[in-house]
Each structure stands twice: as C-alpha cells, then as structure tokens.
C-alpha cells in the first residue's frame, strides 16, 4: 500500500513513542533485577545499569538465610491458594446462576451485588464485622472479605451469557439433565478459559494484598510477603538482616542491596507466570469490558 509522506512520518514517530513506552515500563523492573545481583558500590553511584557489571550475591545469600521473609512467603502462598479456591467456589456457580435468564429475581440479585461496587460500609464497619465473626488474626480474615469481587462476578457472568448457547441447555434438559448436572457436567468443562481468568485475577489480588493484612492480622508470623517487604524496604528494617559481626560499612553496603533482592523476590513469581497466562488475561479484561 502506498503511503503519503505524512503517514510515514506518523508511523516513525509512533514506533519511537511505543518503543520509549516499553522501555519506561520494563526498565525499572529490569534495573531492580540487575541491582540485586550487582556490587552495591556500582549501584550506589546511581549510574544506569544495562548488565551485571560486577556480580555480587551476598544480598541473596543473606536474604535466603532470613527466616521471617520465608515465613511470609509461605503465608502468602497459602493465602493465595486457599483464597483462590474459596473465591472460585463462591464466584463461578453464582455467575452461572446469574447468567440464566429464566431465574426469577435475577435482576434484583444482580443489583444487590452491583450496588456494593459503589457504596460500601467502609473500613471500620468491616473491621468490626471481622472481629465479631471471630476470624480476626486468622487466615480467614485474609481470604473471606475479598472472597467475591463483584467485578470478577460480572466478567464471569458475561462469559456464561455469551459462551453457552441456550440451545445447549434446552437439548440437555430434553435429555433429562437438571441444573446441577448441566452446570457441573457441561458448563464447567466448556469454561476452562473463564476459570483460568478468574484464577489469575483472584490469585494476583491475593498475592498483592497488603492493607487487609495490617488491618486484620496481628501476629508477625502470620504476615504475608507484602507486609514484610514493606517493613524491610520502606520502614528501613533491612539493616536488621545483616549479621552483627560485619563491619559497619559492609553492613550498609549490604543493606542497600537487600532492598533490591527482596523487591525482586516478591515481584518475580507473578511477573514470570504472567507471559504464559497473558492470553487469558486479555480475554478476561475484554469480556469484563463488554458488559461491565
């Protein structure tokens, strides 16, 4: 196709803009990864890094030996796995039921859910609810309050509405299939995509939970990764990690690198899983967009 001169300039500028954008998005993450492996003396000069100039792994050695970090890592994994399962059990069946146009009261129930997206009790009433349920400072305080995301429920419902043709249900009914049978034996096997999307959305949210943890948990050994990360990096507790025998300067040097190591370790799992899951991700967001 022939292009006018103006269009060509537009294309070139556009590509440059896009390339810069990608750089701005990726570089901070890449920088942290490099800094976590590079000699802190080089990092602290503040010059931009492009590769590992001088390998220095003492940061990771110390990090690996720091038990509170691993306890929190373990907690986060448990919260994420249990939370995702609970959320799926609550969301997927409900989304299917709400997608059925023949269910009486469907609009009213849907409204009851949607309303809470725009008006909620807020921090204190929810906190008092959690206290009165007796789940304060337990795993359930992390898992249950965020058990259903209404946004995800809407995404999932849209999938069932558009992905399961009504003829399928009618045919199954003629064969004597009831609603349970249809949901478990036909709808679920046809919906692996949406289940993957839900897993991804819920697991990400659970993995990244911070505020609920500081509100609803008390014991240090129950805290998730994000809280420990914040204490180490933002509250400057990383100096606690260095062994006491080290000389002052060596310890300071290490303290700087530890921050990069901890950030890299906590962001890495999701960022590494993401390229494999991203096709589901786009699908989920687009679905939510259509009906949301």
């Amino acid at each position, binding site marked *: 196709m022939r292009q006018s001169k103006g269009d060509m300039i537009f294309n070139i500028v556009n590509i440059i803009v896009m390339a810069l954008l990608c750089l701005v998005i990726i570089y901070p993450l890449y920088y942290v990864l490099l800094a976590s492996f590079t000699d802190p003396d080089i990092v602290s000069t503040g010059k931009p890094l492009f590769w590992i100039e001088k390998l220095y792994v003492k940061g990771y050695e110390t990090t690996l030996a720091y038990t509170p970090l691993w306890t929190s890592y373990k907690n986060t994994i448990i919260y994420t796995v249990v939370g995702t399962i609970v959320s799926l059990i609550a969301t997927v069946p409900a989304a299917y039921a709400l997608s059925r146009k023949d269910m009486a009261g469907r609009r009213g129930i849907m409204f009851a859910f949607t309303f809470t997206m725009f008006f909620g009790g807020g921090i204190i*009433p929810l906190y008092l609810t959690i206290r009165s349920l007796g789940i304060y400072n337990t795993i359930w305080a992390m898992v249950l309050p965020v*058990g259903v995301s209404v946004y995800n429920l809407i995404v999932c419902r849209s999938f069932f509405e558009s992905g399961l043709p009504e003829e399928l249900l009618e045919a199954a009914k003629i064969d004597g299939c009831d609603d349970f049978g249809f949901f478990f034996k036909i709808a679920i096997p046809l919906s692996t995509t949406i289940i993957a999307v839900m897993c991804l959305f819920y697991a990400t949210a659970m*993995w990244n939970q911070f505020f609920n943890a500081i509100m609803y948990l008390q014991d240090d050994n129950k805290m998730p990764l*994000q809280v420990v990360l914040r204490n180490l990096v933002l509250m400057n507790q990383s100096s606690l990690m260095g062994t006491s025998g080290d000389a002052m300067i060596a310890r300071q040097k290490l303290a700087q690198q530890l921050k990069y190591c901890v950030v890299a370790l906590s962001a890495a799992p999701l960022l590494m899983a993401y390229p494999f899951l991203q096709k589901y991700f786009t699908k989920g967001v687009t679905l939510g967009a259509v009906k949301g």
Partner: protein
Amino acid sequence: MQSKVAKRSIWSGFKSSWQLYVLLIPAVAWLVTFAYYPLYGLVIAFKDYQIRAGILQSPWADPFFKYFSQFFSTSIALQSIRNTLVLSLESLVFAFPVPIIFALLLNQIKRDKVKKVIQTISYAPYFVSNVVVVSLITVLFSANGVVNRAAVSLGGQETLFTSLPEWFRGLFIGSNIWQTMGFNAVIFIAALTAISPEYYEAATIDGATRMQKILHIDLPLILPTIILMLILAAGNIMNIGYEKAFLMQNGSNTVVSELISTYVYKVGLQTAQYSFATAVGLFNSIANFVILAIANQVAKKTSNLSIF
C-alpha cells in the same frame, strides 16, 4: 416465553429452578456478611459505640450528628477532603486520557506480532503490587538513586522526591499511569478492533491521513466507551488508591498525602475511635455516591449514556 415467566408465581419460579439458588448460596452468604452487614454497621456513626455493648446496645450519640460535626471542626477535615479531591481530579485529568491515547496509537501499528508484544509489555505492571511500586519509587528516586544521579549528571540538582510534598502527587499519579495504562487500555483496544474496516477504506479513498482517521473515525466511534469509563472513574473519585497513598506517606508529606481514607484508618484502627472514624468514612462514601450520581445524570443528559 416472557409472559409465561411473568405469570408464574414467585414460588413456582423458585421451585422449578431451586438448584440455581443453591449455586448462589456461597456468593450471597459473602454478600450478606461482608457487604451488607457492614452497611448496617454504619449506624455506629450515629452512636457512641462501645465494643462490649455491641452495635444494638450502644447508646445513640447526643447530638445525633456529634461525630460529623466533630470531624468538620478539625483542621484535618478540610485538608483531607481537599487532598482527596485534588489528587483524584488531577488523576482524572492526567491519567485518564493516557490509556486512550495509547490504544489509539497502538491501533495504528499494523503488524499484529509487534502490536501483541507491546500490549503484553504494557500490562505487565498491573501484576506488580503497590508495595513493590512504592519500593521502586523509593529506591529509584532516593538521594543516590538512578533518577537523581541522572539529573545531576545532566547539570540538574539533587531533589528529595520522596519527602517533598510538592512531588507527592506527581509520583503518585505518574506511578499510577505506569501501573494501569496497559490494563485500562484493553477496553479501548477492544472497542477499536470492533470498528468496521469499511470506514477506513472509504477514508483512504477520500485521501485522509492517519491523523485524520484517528480524529474523525476512531475517536468518535469509541466515545461511548470513553464516556462510560469516565462515569465509572467519577464513581470512584473519593476512593482513590488509599493503600498507595498510605505507603507513600511519611512525616514530611502528610500535608498533601493525608486522604480521608488514610485518616479513617489512623483514627479508627490506630486510636480505636470507631464511631468517629465510621462517621468520616460514611461522609466519604456519601460524597462519592453523590459525585457518581451527578456524573451519571450529566452523561445521560448530554449523550444518552449512563450506567444506571
């Protein structure tokens, strides 16, 4: 079919599809416990709540609006309301258009592979938690961080970005754009791919340039999506990312970083003034809802689009 359903009594409707209601039980149990019961809990904003007595037994506040007037008599009230509004409005002005522009530009890239790679990169930061983002800001913008060093070597001055109040909003909004641009663009990209190619063909025949196609085809056709997203953004104006604001807060920037929601957390959970904090939170929710309703009405009047 429709009339048949309507004629049926609720009971027989319920009986014929009881299994569907069973499927709803877990979600409805959640809704009642964690969404509506806390709504009921809002009454403590009008009571002198005591933990021992519980919600019902606690005496009513005297006067009824005691905690609201108490809030408005503090100097922090005006400041936190102002901070919340300014931060939200600035976010709306600066951050809202970015995903739209990104989607429009990305749509101009004709090679599908390249387009996909860029899109994949663009929403990676969505998976990065607020704690990590604020950690990134702290290390990159610190005194001997990469940003300050670059500024100095270019002849600039060292700036203490993370503790200066005048940089708080810039860093907050800038990092928000970094986190959500790709994610928020997905909906606009979907709207753009739905545009029929015939429009472009006709425009090409008429000799339209790319820029003209963007302005006269793409933009008008995705306008409904833009308006809907704008209403939704307005509906969250008072709920702006308090987690991140809280994480970015330090002793020297509270003049701009204290939001209504971070204040609620502090007085509510750190000093246990439950009724007072609930009143402040309720004020925030109501203000937010009013803004949403107004935005919805304005959109309805001017463009026939609304969310309810």
